[in-house]
């Protein structure tokens, strides 16, 4: 990291400076510019880069805002759009959209134990009210999206007591729940809370 220090002086040349002193001064200016910009940009000569890469970003050539989360503000939409904010107290990374702040990263994320190939791991969930007339009853529920393959897991929870239930069929787009009422009391329609997880190629 460059520390220009006294090499960058803005008081010379002055009106009283001697013309003959300017050549070495100008050369030092070029060197200072190359050193300074070369910290985060590829820059030729003293910057350590090449003419072909002049101006390209070096690795690590970005830095998010860094402060406590309460200082995060995307109010200035013109200048803040797409900027990043790293919260020093909650360890969360925010990015600013034109009309909102988005959570882009957090140490509390849940990481799947296996890779998703070129896709991403996606979890969908919902609550579906289904008819419960027979024993057993069948309910076909759609995930609302189609996974790349049969999802790895489906969980179901029923809203009424005394139902035995299991997943009787599973596809990339949904599942069939088979359930039976065991009593006591009257059988009625039931809400199934469900969660599925699988992979989807590309962004969601």
């Amino acid at each position, binding site marked *: 990291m460059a520390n220009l220090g006294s090499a960058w002086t803005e008081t010379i040349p002055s009106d009283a400076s001697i*013309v*003959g002193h*300017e*050549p070495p001064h*100008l*050369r030092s200016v*070029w060197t200072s510019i*190359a050193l300074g910009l070369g910290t985060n*940009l590829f*820059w030729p*000569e*003293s910057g350590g880069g090449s*003419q072909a890469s*002049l*101006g390209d*970003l070096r*690795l*690590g050539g*970005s*830095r*998010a805002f*860094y402060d406590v989360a309460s200082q995060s503000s995307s109010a200035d939409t013109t*200048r803040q759009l*797409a900027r*990043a904010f*790293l919260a*020093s107290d909650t*360890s969360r*990374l*925010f990015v600013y959209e034109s009309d*909102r*702040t988005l959570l882009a*990263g*957090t140490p509390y*994320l849940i*990481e799947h134990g*296996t*890779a*998703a190939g070129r896709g*991403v*791991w*996606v*979890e*969908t*969930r*919902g*609550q579906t009210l289904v008819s419960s007339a027979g024993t057993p009853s069948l309910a076909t529920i759609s*995930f609302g*999206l189609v996974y790349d393959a049969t999802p790895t897991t489906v*969980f*179901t*929870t*029923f*809203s009424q*007591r005394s*139902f035995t239930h299991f997943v009787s069929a599973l596809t990339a787009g949904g599942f069939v729940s088979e359930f039976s009422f065991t009593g006591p009391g009257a059988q009625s329609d039931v809400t199934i*809370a469900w*969660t599925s997880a699988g992979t*989807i190629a590309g962004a*969601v």
Partner: protein
Amino acid sequence: MTWVENKPQANDPLREIADLLRSQKSEISVGVGKHFFWTESSGASAGEPRLSLGSNGPGSARAFYGAQSALSAQPSGKLFVTSDTSRLYGLTSSATTMLLGSAQAIISGGTSEATLPNNTRWHVESGRTGPLTIGTTLYNQNFTTPYAAAAPLVHAQAGSNNPSVTTDVLMVSVLSANSSGFSYQLARIGVNANNSAFVYWRSTGTVAL
């Protein structure tokens, strides 16, 4: 034109100075302008990072990139993408690293439940309660952090308090849920050997960002 640092020399003709200055200014404009507003912008915005569209992009930001073992202290706010584990880290000057993202992170699909509301984030709580008496008792479980206006989705699973009994079917049903908690009951099919059970539960919903 190229960037030069060995000009002007003491004996160079004065008439070369103007051409040199124009050339160097042009090089600065070309180089800085790849990722920062410069000549085409107002003075107020010169030097600000460009958005993807106008940058030598995509984007005027570039994280460190290397093996996870290379994580180290950097000026706070720098980002690091690991080449071997596909994770994104935030760096600090104290060498404390923050895991921020992962290629294996589980994301929430946007087509079930509501699309994530403005300025909110997903929040999960889970727990194990019990042993609780099986019967018609209505149990209540409060969340540590209340959810946003909408009730979260709750899953619950019964767990045996008497593993030696294998003839009973234990069931738990979530009868209602709101932003602060949920209510549930335990039931059993079997020979009545189990009179109590544990409940394992997990709630998923949104809270304020």
